């Protein structure tokens, strides 16, 4: 899925790159995946005081098939690990992952038998936002840095990356 699979191999198209990345970052839809306390701050970021819809994240899609960005907000318990992997695999390319909070990034306050010490053990993460829970301004800063990262992406690299995964 995506324009990468339609362009021929080993060709770099700079203006097409810029246009596609601009379109992708201007309307990235997050997956509604709040687990614990960080989910409440994520909801507060989407509410009217720290409105996130002005950056294009208009709706939070409940289904992973319709989402671009997975914001893992909250602590990930060992029972939840297969669920997260299934959700990540269901999301169509291009997809990004933002790890929100200390518990999702590295296990956080809880260093014990029940909590996965960081979701980068199981899925690739693009941006880490620290905090316990991060302030809405911090989460918005993280999302804007993700947008900068998306703007710098090149279609050729992404195509090779996806080819390696599926092929």
């Amino acid at each position: 899925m995506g324009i990468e699979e339609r362009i021929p191999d080993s060709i770099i198209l700079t203006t097409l790159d810029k246009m596609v990345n601009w379109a992708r970052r201007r309307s990235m839809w997050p997956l509604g995946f709040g687990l614990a306390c960080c989910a409440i701050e994520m909801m507060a970021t989407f509410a009217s005081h720290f409105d996130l819809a002005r950056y294009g994240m208009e709706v939070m899609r409940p289904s992973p098939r319709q989402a671009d960005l997975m914001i893992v907000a909250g602590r990930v318990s060992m029972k939840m690990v297969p669920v997260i992997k299934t959700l990540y695999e269901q999301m169509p390319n291009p997809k990004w992952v933002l790890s929100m909070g200390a518990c999702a990034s590295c296990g956080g306050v809880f260093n014990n038998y029940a909590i996965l010490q960081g979701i980068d053990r199981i899925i690739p993460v693009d941006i880490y936002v620290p905090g316990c829970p991060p302030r809405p301004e911090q989460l918005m800063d993280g999302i804007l840095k993700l947008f900068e990262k998306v703007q710098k992406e090149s279609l050729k690299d992404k195509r090779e990356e996806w080819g390696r995964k599926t092929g």
Partner: protein
Amino acid sequence: MEEQLRGFIKARFGEAMVREEEFRGEQSFHIKPEALIEICQAFLDDNDLQVRFLSDITAVDWLGHERADEGRFEVIYNLYSLTHAYRFFVKVHLPADHPRIASLCDLWPGADWMEREVYDLFGIEFEGHPCLEKILTPDDLVGHPLRKDFPLTYEQPQFTWNKDQPPEVVR
């Protein structure tokens, strides 16, 4: 209410009561495990005491402490009377191997999940429970986490000098 309770239990279940304890204003009765269902049924039937609310069921692991001489596991039943607004505890001591006790699910349907949790975290079996299964821990976790011989299992934090090594898990 304190005197009433003491009199009630001494009169009807004198030989089942091991001892009575009072700590920081709270009254608890240590009883023998066999008498549990009888005592709870008597509480539900009695109209003066009106003890109808089972607030909580939990357990304590006394491994390595001198209190473990009475029995390694102590199951604590937290009972409350709504009309008198009085709370008291019924405690039972169970041995270390194969701890089991009768289930209160027939008397109070709310005891269902509380007993499942005690089974999951401590390994105490409740006889007569309709469906005694794990409720909180994942299915592939073997063992009972809240026992004192199950370690906390933490990982050493990553510094620059060990960042290329796999994470060291301390059991």
